[in-house]
Protein backbone atom coordinates (compact mmCIF):
# COMPACT_ATOMS: atom_id res chain seq x y z
CA UNK A 1 0.00 0.00 0.00
CA UNK A 2 1.48 3.34 -0.98
CA UNK A 3 1.36 6.48 1.16
CA UNK A 4 -1.85 7.52 -0.61
CA UNK A 5 -3.65 4.34 0.50
CA UNK A 6 -3.59 2.69 -2.94
CA UNK A 7 -3.01 -1.06 -3.06
CA UNK A 8 0.08 -1.53 -5.23
CA UNK A 9 0.74 -5.22 -4.63
CA UNK A 10 -0.95 -8.24 -3.13
CA UNK A 11 0.52 -11.60 -2.14
CA UNK A 12 3.82 -9.83 -2.67
CA UNK A 13 7.13 -11.45 -1.77
CA UNK A 14 10.05 -9.11 -2.08
CA UNK A 15 11.25 -5.69 -1.03
CA UNK A 16 9.22 -2.48 -0.97
CA UNK A 17 9.92 1.11 -0.07
CA UNK A 18 7.47 3.99 -0.05
CA UNK A 19 8.51 7.58 -0.62
CA UNK A 20 6.69 10.87 -0.93
CA UNK A 21 7.76 14.02 -2.71
CA UNK A 22 6.66 17.57 -3.16
CA UNK A 23 7.54 19.60 -6.22
CA UNK A 24 9.28 22.85 -5.33
CA UNK A 25 10.63 25.75 -7.37
CA UNK A 26 14.23 26.92 -7.47
CA UNK A 27 13.80 28.82 -4.21
CA UNK A 28 12.43 25.78 -2.43
CA UNK A 29 8.87 27.06 -2.36
CA UNK A 30 6.14 24.48 -3.03
CA UNK A 31 4.79 24.46 -6.58
CA UNK A 32 1.10 24.93 -5.98
CA UNK A 33 -0.43 24.36 -9.44
CA UNK A 34 -1.80 21.08 -10.72
CA UNK A 35 0.50 19.22 -13.12
CA UNK A 36 1.19 15.81 -14.57
CA UNK A 37 4.27 13.82 -13.63
CA UNK A 38 6.13 11.21 -15.65
CA UNK A 39 9.11 9.08 -14.79
CA UNK A 40 11.77 7.31 -16.82
CA UNK A 41 14.26 4.62 -15.93
CA UNK A 42 17.76 3.92 -17.24
CA UNK A 43 21.15 2.39 -16.43
CA UNK A 44 19.83 -1.02 -15.44
CA UNK A 45 22.18 -3.44 -13.72
CA UNK A 46 20.75 -6.71 -12.47
CA UNK A 47 21.78 -10.07 -11.07
CA UNK A 48 18.62 -11.73 -12.41
CA UNK A 49 17.14 -11.07 -15.86
CA UNK A 50 13.68 -11.33 -14.27
CA UNK A 51 14.42 -8.07 -12.49
CA UNK A 52 14.38 -5.56 -15.30
CA UNK A 53 13.34 -1.94 -15.28
CA UNK A 54 9.89 -1.13 -13.86
CA UNK A 55 7.14 -0.03 -16.22
CA UNK A 56 7.37 3.77 -16.05
CA UNK A 57 4.38 5.78 -14.85
CA UNK A 58 3.38 8.51 -17.25
CA UNK A 59 1.25 11.62 -16.99
CA UNK A 60 0.21 10.95 -13.42
CA UNK A 61 -2.16 13.78 -12.45
CA UNK A 62 -0.98 15.63 -9.34
CA UNK A 63 -3.61 17.97 -7.87
CA UNK A 64 -2.85 21.56 -6.91
CA UNK A 65 -0.69 21.57 -3.77
CA UNK A 66 -0.64 17.78 -3.97
CA UNK A 67 1.91 15.29 -2.71
CA UNK A 68 3.58 12.73 -4.99
CA UNK A 69 3.70 9.16 -3.76
CA UNK A 70 6.08 6.55 -5.10
CA UNK A 71 6.06 2.88 -4.22
CA UNK A 72 9.17 0.96 -5.20
CA UNK A 73 8.78 -2.77 -5.53
CA UNK A 74 11.15 -5.53 -6.47
CA UNK A 75 9.87 -9.07 -6.17
CA UNK A 76 7.19 -11.46 -7.28
CA UNK A 77 3.74 -12.65 -6.46
CA UNK A 78 3.96 -15.44 -3.89
CA UNK A 79 4.88 -18.34 -3.97
CA UNK A 80 7.77 -17.06 -6.07
CA UNK A 81 10.19 -14.92 -4.07
CA UNK A 82 13.50 -13.20 -4.58
CA UNK A 83 16.59 -15.39 -4.57
CA UNK A 84 19.15 -14.73 -1.88
CA UNK A 85 21.19 -12.46 -4.13
CA UNK A 86 18.50 -11.16 -6.51
CA UNK A 87 18.79 -7.42 -6.85
CA UNK A 88 18.99 -4.68 -9.41
CA UNK A 89 19.91 -1.02 -9.68
CA UNK A 90 18.80 1.76 -11.99
CA UNK A 91 18.31 5.50 -12.28
CA UNK A 92 14.98 7.29 -12.07
CA UNK A 93 14.29 10.68 -13.63
CA UNK A 94 11.16 12.82 -13.74
CA UNK A 95 9.47 15.26 -16.04
CA UNK A 96 6.59 17.60 -15.29
CA UNK A 97 4.01 18.89 -17.74
CA UNK A 98 2.19 22.06 -16.87
CA UNK A 99 0.44 24.48 -19.20
CA UNK A 100 1.18 22.19 -22.13
CA UNK A 101 4.94 22.48 -21.61
CA UNK A 102 7.17 19.62 -20.46
CA UNK A 103 10.00 20.34 -18.02
CA UNK A 104 12.69 17.81 -17.15
CA UNK A 105 13.44 17.89 -13.43
CA UNK A 106 17.01 18.07 -12.21
CA UNK A 107 16.45 15.54 -9.42
CA UNK A 108 17.84 12.08 -10.14
CA UNK A 109 17.41 9.01 -7.98
CA UNK A 110 19.81 6.09 -7.95
CA UNK A 111 17.93 3.04 -6.70
CA UNK A 112 19.42 -0.26 -5.67
CA UNK A 113 17.09 -2.83 -4.18
CA UNK A 114 16.54 -6.54 -3.64
CA UNK A 115 18.38 -9.21 -1.68
CA UNK A 116 22.09 -8.70 -1.19
CA UNK A 117 23.69 -11.93 0.00
CA UNK A 118 20.52 -12.72 1.91
CA UNK A 119 19.93 -9.22 3.26
CA UNK A 120 16.93 -7.30 1.89
CA UNK A 121 17.73 -3.67 1.12
CA UNK A 122 16.19 -0.77 -0.73
CA UNK A 123 18.74 2.00 -1.11
CA UNK A 124 17.86 5.33 -2.63
CA UNK A 125 20.38 8.06 -3.35
CA UNK A 126 18.90 11.41 -4.37
CA UNK A 127 20.94 13.84 -6.40
CA UNK A 128 19.72 17.42 -6.74
CA UNK A 129 22.11 19.89 -8.35
Amino acid at each position, binding site marked *: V*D*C*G*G*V*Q*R*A*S*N*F*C*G*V*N*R*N*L*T*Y*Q*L*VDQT*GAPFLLAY*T*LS*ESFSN*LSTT*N*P*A*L*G*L*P*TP*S*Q*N*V*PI*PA*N*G*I*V*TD*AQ*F*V*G*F*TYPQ*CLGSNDHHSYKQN*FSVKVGGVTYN*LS*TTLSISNGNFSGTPQ*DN*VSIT*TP
Partner: protein
Amino acid sequence: MRTFLPSSSRVLLAVALLSSLRVSGQAAPAPQEDVLTRSARIDDESLPAFSAFQGALQMSGVPGGVAFMEGCSDQPVPMVRPHGTTLREVLNSITAGDSAYAWRMREGVVNLEPSTGLPALLRTHLNTYDSRDATDAVSAVTFLSSSLEVTRAATNLGLAQNVLGPGLGSMAQGPPPPIKPLGIRLHDVTLVDVLNAIALANKHGVWTYRETHCGSVHQFNVSFAQ
Protein backbone atom coordinates in the same frame (compact mmCIF):
# COMPACT_ATOMS: atom_id res chain seq x y z
CA MET B 1 11.87 17.95 -6.02
CA ARG B 2 12.00 17.67 -2.24
CA THR B 3 11.77 14.34 -0.50
CA PHE B 4 10.20 13.83 2.87
CA LEU B 5 8.48 11.28 5.00
CA PRO B 6 10.47 8.34 3.68
CA SER B 7 9.51 5.09 5.23
CA SER B 8 10.73 1.68 4.35
CA SER B 9 9.46 -1.73 4.93
CA ARG B 10 10.08 -5.16 3.71
CA VAL B 11 6.92 -6.94 3.16
CA LEU B 12 5.49 -10.29 2.60
CA LEU B 13 1.84 -9.75 2.31
CA ALA B 14 -0.69 -12.45 2.10
CA VAL B 15 -4.10 -11.21 1.30
CA ALA B 16 -7.08 -13.40 0.85
CA LEU B 17 -9.00 -12.46 -2.19
CA LEU B 18 -11.86 -12.63 -4.44
CA SER B 19 -15.18 -14.14 -3.89
CA SER B 20 -18.06 -14.64 -6.14
CA LEU B 21 -21.18 -12.91 -7.30
CA ARG B 22 -22.96 -12.25 -10.50
CA VAL B 23 -24.55 -9.55 -12.54
CA SER B 24 -22.74 -6.62 -14.05
CA GLY B 25 -22.86 -2.96 -13.21
CA GLN B 26 -20.80 -0.29 -14.96
CA ALA B 27 -21.10 3.04 -16.69
CA ALA B 28 -22.56 3.05 -20.16
CA PRO B 29 -19.81 3.49 -22.77
CA ALA B 30 -19.67 6.64 -24.80
CA PRO B 31 -20.37 6.25 -28.50
CA GLN B 32 -17.23 4.95 -30.15
CA GLU B 33 -17.01 7.63 -32.80
CA ASP B 34 -17.24 10.36 -30.15
CA VAL B 35 -14.19 9.19 -28.25
CA LEU B 36 -12.09 8.55 -31.35
CA THR B 37 -12.51 12.14 -32.48
CA ARG B 38 -11.29 13.55 -29.18
CA SER B 39 -8.05 15.48 -29.20
CA ALA B 40 -5.06 13.28 -28.40
CA ARG B 41 -2.15 15.37 -29.56
CA ILE B 42 0.97 14.35 -27.66
CA ASP B 43 4.56 15.55 -27.71
CA ASP B 44 6.45 14.92 -30.93
CA GLU B 45 9.02 12.43 -29.71
CA SER B 46 10.06 8.84 -30.28
CA LEU B 47 8.47 6.42 -27.87
CA PRO B 48 7.80 2.71 -27.60
CA ALA B 49 4.33 1.93 -28.97
CA PHE B 50 2.91 1.14 -25.54
CA SER B 51 4.11 4.46 -24.10
CA ALA B 52 2.74 6.45 -27.04
CA PHE B 53 -0.59 4.65 -26.71
CA GLN B 54 -0.79 5.33 -22.99
CA GLY B 55 0.03 9.00 -23.52
CA ALA B 56 -2.58 9.39 -26.25
CA LEU B 57 -5.31 7.82 -24.14
CA GLN B 58 -4.43 9.84 -21.08
CA MET B 59 -4.46 13.00 -23.18
CA SER B 60 -7.87 12.17 -24.63
CA GLY B 61 -9.34 10.93 -21.35
CA VAL B 62 -10.49 7.71 -22.99
CA PRO B 63 -10.16 4.50 -20.96
CA GLY B 64 -8.05 1.75 -22.45
CA GLY B 65 -5.47 -0.96 -22.07
CA VAL B 66 -2.33 -2.18 -23.77
CA ALA B 67 -0.78 -5.63 -23.96
CA PHE B 68 2.80 -5.92 -25.08
CA MET B 69 5.47 -8.57 -25.24
CA GLU B 70 9.17 -8.01 -24.77
CA GLY B 71 12.44 -9.91 -24.77
CA CYS B 72 15.54 -9.37 -22.66
CA SER B 73 16.19 -5.88 -21.34
CA ASP B 74 19.22 -5.47 -23.60
CA GLN B 75 17.17 -5.98 -26.76
CA PRO B 76 16.27 -2.78 -28.62
CA VAL B 77 12.65 -1.67 -28.37
CA PRO B 78 11.03 -0.45 -31.62
CA MET B 79 10.13 3.22 -31.40
CA VAL B 80 7.26 5.11 -33.00
CA ARG B 81 6.73 8.79 -33.60
CA PRO B 82 3.05 9.41 -32.94
CA HIS B 83 1.37 12.24 -34.80
CA GLY B 84 -2.09 13.50 -35.54
CA THR B 85 -4.75 15.48 -33.78
CA THR B 86 -7.59 13.11 -33.00
CA LEU B 87 -7.28 9.91 -31.03
CA ARG B 88 -8.00 7.88 -34.16
CA GLU B 89 -5.19 9.63 -36.07
CA VAL B 90 -2.70 9.14 -33.27
CA LEU B 91 -3.63 5.48 -32.83
CA ASN B 92 -3.26 4.89 -36.58
CA SER B 93 0.17 6.56 -36.54
CA ILE B 94 1.27 4.30 -33.70
CA THR B 95 0.28 1.09 -35.45
CA ALA B 96 1.72 2.38 -38.73
CA GLY B 97 5.00 2.95 -36.92
CA ASP B 98 5.05 -0.48 -35.31
CA SER B 99 3.07 -3.08 -37.23
CA ALA B 100 3.54 -5.58 -34.42
CA TYR B 101 0.54 -3.91 -32.78
CA ALA B 102 -3.07 -3.26 -33.69
CA TRP B 103 -5.68 -1.19 -31.89
CA ARG B 104 -9.35 -1.93 -31.48
CA MET B 105 -12.40 -0.72 -29.62
CA ARG B 106 -14.08 -3.00 -27.16
CA GLU B 107 -17.31 -1.51 -25.82
CA GLY B 108 -16.02 1.98 -25.17
CA VAL B 109 -12.48 0.96 -24.26
CA VAL B 110 -9.51 1.20 -26.64
CA ASN B 111 -7.02 -1.64 -26.63
CA LEU B 112 -3.57 -1.88 -28.20
CA GLU B 113 -2.52 -5.49 -28.58
CA PRO B 114 -0.12 -7.66 -30.56
CA SER B 115 -1.18 -8.04 -34.21
CA THR B 116 -1.03 -11.77 -33.66
CA GLY B 117 -3.74 -11.55 -31.01
CA LEU B 118 -4.12 -11.16 -27.30
CA PRO B 119 -1.64 -13.00 -25.06
CA ALA B 120 -3.09 -16.25 -23.74
CA LEU B 121 -3.27 -15.08 -20.13
CA LEU B 122 -5.54 -12.19 -21.06
CA ARG B 123 -7.92 -14.70 -22.65
CA THR B 124 -8.23 -16.58 -19.36
CA HIS B 125 -11.86 -17.31 -18.58
CA LEU B 126 -13.19 -16.15 -15.22
CA ASN B 127 -16.50 -17.45 -13.96
CA THR B 128 -17.11 -14.36 -11.86
CA TYR B 129 -15.48 -11.09 -10.92
CA ASP B 130 -16.40 -8.80 -8.04
CA SER B 131 -14.37 -5.67 -7.32
CA ARG B 132 -15.65 -5.87 -3.74
CA ASP B 133 -14.27 -3.04 -1.58
CA ALA B 134 -11.86 -1.62 -4.17
CA THR B 135 -12.42 2.11 -4.55
CA ASP B 136 -9.77 2.83 -7.16
CA ALA B 137 -8.69 1.18 -10.38
CA VAL B 138 -5.06 0.66 -9.33
CA SER B 139 -6.09 -1.37 -6.30
CA ALA B 140 -8.69 -3.30 -8.30
CA VAL B 141 -6.11 -4.31 -10.91
CA THR B 142 -3.65 -5.26 -8.16
CA PHE B 143 -6.15 -7.62 -6.52
CA LEU B 144 -7.28 -9.01 -9.86
CA SER B 145 -3.81 -9.78 -11.18
CA SER B 146 -2.79 -11.60 -8.01
CA SER B 147 -6.07 -13.47 -7.61
CA LEU B 148 -6.05 -17.23 -7.35
CA GLU B 149 -7.68 -17.70 -10.75
CA VAL B 150 -5.18 -15.51 -12.57
CA THR B 151 -2.20 -16.90 -10.66
CA ARG B 152 -3.32 -20.44 -11.45
CA ALA B 153 -3.77 -19.64 -15.14
CA ALA B 154 -0.36 -17.99 -15.26
CA THR B 155 1.27 -21.01 -13.67
CA ASN B 156 -0.35 -23.26 -16.27
CA LEU B 157 1.15 -21.03 -18.96
CA GLY B 158 4.57 -21.12 -17.30
CA LEU B 159 4.41 -17.45 -16.32
CA ALA B 160 5.55 -15.93 -13.03
CA GLN B 161 4.27 -12.53 -11.95
CA ASN B 162 6.92 -9.97 -11.21
CA VAL B 163 6.17 -6.87 -9.18
CA LEU B 164 8.40 -4.01 -10.24
CA GLY B 165 6.05 -1.07 -10.30
CA PRO B 166 5.07 1.41 -11.58
CA GLY B 167 4.42 3.24 -8.38
CA LEU B 168 3.83 6.93 -8.91
CA GLY B 169 0.62 8.34 -7.49
CA SER B 170 -0.66 11.38 -5.70
CA MET B 171 -2.54 12.47 -2.66
CA ALA B 172 -4.22 15.78 -1.94
CA GLN B 173 -3.50 17.69 1.24
CA GLY B 174 -6.44 18.22 3.50
CA PRO B 175 -9.45 16.02 4.12
CA PRO B 176 -9.73 13.09 1.70
CA PRO B 177 -12.50 13.27 -0.88
CA PRO B 178 -15.46 10.93 -0.48
CA ILE B 179 -14.87 7.56 -2.08
CA LYS B 180 -17.12 4.70 -2.99
CA PRO B 181 -16.51 1.17 -4.21
CA LEU B 182 -16.14 0.67 -7.96
CA GLY B 183 -19.03 -1.78 -7.81
CA ILE B 184 -18.03 -4.02 -10.72
CA ARG B 185 -19.64 -7.44 -10.85
CA LEU B 186 -19.22 -9.63 -13.89
CA HIS B 187 -19.68 -13.25 -14.76
CA ASP B 188 -18.53 -15.49 -17.58
CA VAL B 189 -15.82 -13.12 -18.80
CA THR B 190 -12.15 -13.12 -19.75
CA LEU B 191 -9.33 -11.36 -17.96
CA VAL B 192 -9.18 -8.66 -20.64
CA ASP B 193 -12.92 -8.07 -20.22
CA VAL B 194 -12.43 -7.42 -16.52
CA LEU B 195 -9.47 -5.10 -17.05
CA ASN B 196 -11.52 -3.14 -19.57
CA ALA B 197 -14.47 -3.01 -17.18
CA ILE B 198 -12.21 -1.57 -14.48
CA ALA B 199 -10.90 1.09 -16.88
CA LEU B 200 -14.44 1.89 -17.97
CA ALA B 201 -15.70 2.18 -14.40
CA ASN B 202 -12.77 4.50 -13.69
CA LYS B 203 -13.86 6.55 -16.75
CA HIS B 204 -10.22 7.11 -17.82
CA GLY B 205 -6.79 5.55 -17.39
CA VAL B 206 -4.91 2.71 -19.00
CA TRP B 207 -4.10 -0.80 -17.85
CA THR B 208 -0.80 -2.26 -19.05
CA TYR B 209 -0.10 -5.98 -19.46
CA ARG B 210 3.60 -6.64 -19.93
CA GLU B 211 4.85 -10.13 -20.75
CA THR B 212 8.59 -10.79 -20.72
CA HIS B 213 10.44 -13.73 -22.25
CA CYS B 214 14.19 -13.77 -21.75
CA GLY B 215 16.03 -17.09 -21.69
CA SER B 216 14.48 -19.10 -18.90
CA VAL B 217 12.54 -16.09 -17.63
CA HIS B 218 8.85 -16.06 -18.54
CA GLN B 219 6.84 -13.53 -16.57
CA PHE B 220 4.10 -10.95 -16.67
CA ASN B 221 3.09 -7.78 -14.90
CA VAL B 222 -0.19 -5.89 -14.89
CA SER B 223 -0.56 -2.29 -13.76
CA PHE B 224 -2.94 0.62 -14.10
CA ALA B 225 -2.11 4.27 -14.79
CA GLN B 226 -4.66 6.96 -14.04
